[in-house]
């Protein structure tokens, strides 16, 4: 997994994590890796069976990555980070063919990190404070999350995300950002769409495509699955800490968020 400091002129600076590219004979070609989940495939039993992981990661996720690589080799999207491919292929809603595979590759990678064995419990520290500020209580947030996930029409994802200073207007930037604009939100997205496209910072996600739960739960227990998996979500892995820098940072990978003027910064701690 590579990390690079991005200091481009777009105003987005910060550490950016991206999947490693494979170099063949000095020429960089499309080679996104199928990164394995950070735990053995049977480690989530009994909540999620090994069989599900075998198919979900070993077939679905793998196919997205393989097809994405085939699609972008030799094109303008070749050689970019996964996040860049997602954003560029989204093309403001007029999706290019690579979008579906790129976004699904990103979503699944984020999903495996949103859950972990012996996970669950409650978040702590700054994240808990924000959740309590924006939802009243963690329990309320959890209830809203579950009902959002259970009420998806068709395939999609349910996200806990951080919404930065934005008006609720596409492509607008709030000229007078206030503390109240920044909040934790629960969003549902259809098919492959994810909240990176709206410049939100995803914190957690659950896959609500049928393939995510069908082998283990089938229909009537979808709610049970959601509950169980959220309990497995490593939300306590999101760590907020104070950072005395004055420049504004933004973490594209969605594993962190910024509260303006670099006062607070969040980062998913690995392991």
């Amino acid at each position, binding site marked *: 997994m590579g990390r690079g400091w991005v200091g481009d002129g777009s105003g987005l600076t910060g550490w950016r994590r991206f999947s490693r590219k494979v170099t063949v004979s000095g020429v960089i070609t499309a080679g996104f890796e199928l990164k394995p989940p950070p735990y053995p495939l049977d480690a989530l039993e009994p909540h999620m069976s090994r069989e599900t992981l075998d198919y979900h990661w070993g077939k679905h996720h793998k196919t997205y990555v393989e097809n994405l690589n085939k699609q972008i080799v030799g094109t303008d999207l070749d050689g970019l980070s996964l996040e860049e491919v997602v954003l560029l292929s989204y093309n403001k809603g007029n999706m290019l063919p690579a979008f579906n595979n790129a976004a699904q590759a990103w979503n699944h990678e984020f999903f495996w990190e949103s859950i972990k064995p012996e996970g669950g419990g409650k978040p702590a520290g700054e994240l808990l404070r924000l959740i309590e500020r924006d939802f009243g209580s963690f329990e309320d947030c959890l209830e809203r999350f579950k009902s959002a996930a259970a009420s998806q*029409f068709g395939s999609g994802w349910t996200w806990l995300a951080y919404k930065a200073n934005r008006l609720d207007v596409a492509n607008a930037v709030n000229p007078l950002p206030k503390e109240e604009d920044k909040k934790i939100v629960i969003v549902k997205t259809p098919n492959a769409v994810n909240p990176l496209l709206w410049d939100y910072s995803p914190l957690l996600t659950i896959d609500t495509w*049928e393939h995510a739960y069908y082998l283990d739960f089938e229909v009537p227990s979808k709610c049970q699955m959601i509950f169980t998996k959220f309990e497995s979500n490593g939300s306590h892995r999101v760590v907020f800490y104070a950072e005395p820098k004055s420049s504004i940072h933004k973490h594209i990978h969605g594993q962190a968020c910024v509260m303006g003027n670099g006062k607070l910064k969040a980062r998913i701690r690995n392991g």
Partner: protein
Amino acid sequence: MSIINVSIIFLIAIFAVNIDAGVGKTITMDPCLESMKTASLPDLPYAYDALEPAISEEIMQLHHQKHHQTYVTQYNKALGKLRSALADGDHSSVVKLQSLIKFNGGGHVNHAIFWKNLAPVHEGGGKPPHDPLSSAIDAHFGSLEGLIQKMNAEGAAVQGSGWVWFGLDKELKRLVVETTANQDPLVTKGSHLVPLIGIDVWEHAYYPQYKNARAEYLKNIWSVINWKYASDVYERNNRDQTEI
């Protein structure tokens, strides 16, 4: 004795008239809504294992008894809420309910067609269509194989959940292959479209048996497609056109 009998009959007659009069009086809303018919889960015209090996018994049972039943239940619930909202003149609730009605009602409509689109092999499943549908297919798609290939390609390309349809455009008198997302019925793609065959490509339609191999499911399902039903619908809707 006879006077008493007559009196009793007379009293009963008066009473009966009063009962009749009472029934019509208490309603304040449009009597049309009183007779709103709700949906019910249709029986499968074959056993759950009758479509093996193309579609497993496990899938048929889950698909019919759980998925379709849930659409029916939720659709009826939404209709009940719609009735109340209409009665109250609560128009924003009426509007808010539309997406639930579209999704669950669409799920009911689509699956009701789907069960009729399938038939066990020993009852004609997989048997190619006869004229006039057969000639129409050849005219529009080159051959039956050509139609099947197109359906399978479109069905495999549906991203997420949806349906692939073989339909008749009544107005343009053309056969079409279309896809719809989620539980949108074919008519959402055109009000003159009549579904002849619909294939469910939601993951629940094939996952326990085929896992992520949707293309394999699409290849196999043709061995249990009920062309007789498709032909009947085609002839009925084509005939209507010429009678006008």
